[in-house]
């Protein structure tokens, strides 16, 4: 699968289309554009999307940046589909303050990706 970078952010950013469901319900929502973010420990999904999925919370956690600011969040279980690949019951952080999906390393480390920067496109191998 090949996906062009998104130009909604400058410089353009690698993205994938993802489809989401509460675990094992097969009630898929999307597709949503997810930013490929290897700087994020976890995948982060807007809370409003998680609430629409009716995904279950499994623990509280703290969302932080490299400057150590701290925001209380909950971690939820979500099924994530990227292309033909389905990742069941992934731990994701629900973000009450953002409308972006960040595909973090807990998902990226299970994908074989090639970032073809000069052509502004991502290959899912």
């Amino acid at each position, binding site marked *: 699968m090949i996906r062009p970078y998104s*130009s909604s952010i400058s*410089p353009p950013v690698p993205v994938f289309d993802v489809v989401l469901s509460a675990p094992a319900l097969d009630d898929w929502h999307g597709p949503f554009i997810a930013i490929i973010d290897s700087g994020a*420990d976890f995948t*982060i999904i807007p809370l409003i999307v998680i609430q629409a999925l009716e995904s279950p919370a499994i623990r509280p956690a703290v969302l932080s*940046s490299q400057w150590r600011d701290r925001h209380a969040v909950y*971690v939820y279980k979500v099924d994530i589909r990227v292309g033909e690949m389905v990742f*069941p*019951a992934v731990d994701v952080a629900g973000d009450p303050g953002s409308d972006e999906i960040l595909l973090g390393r807990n998902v990226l480390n299970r994908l074989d990706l090639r970032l073809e920067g000069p052509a502004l496109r991502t290959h899912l191998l």
Partner: protein
Amino acid sequence: MMLKELDVTPGGELIIGHAALKEAGLAGRVQLIIQAGEIRIVPEAEFESDADPFPVDKHLMQIDREQQAYEAQHSQLLEEYAGQYIAMYQGEVVDHDEDSGGLWQRVRKRYGKEPVLITPVLQEARQTIVVRSPRLLENIR
């Protein structure tokens, strides 16, 4: 709005005096709502109206209670389950696994939609998720 008669006693109690409540329009009967680390004080009539201004998520409240139980037992659980995921239900560890997905499947099968805390047992009692991706705001279109 400046609150008056708001005090924390040496014993650690938070006291909100009558003047402060009156100034906030809360001098009558009130309800306390404790949720997600916050305490809200609302007029009882408002709380009982059809349109609940602060809907209480019972699932999250139970997850918070399980987290409190987990934190109270954290040092002991760290000795026993470091590096694993545990499932905590009604204050007790009911299952554990190195694989979060496998643990989730068993918990779901056994407890259905009941709130069950599933957490990695780490040095810190509450997991910190770091996002090292600052954005240059002037470049957002």
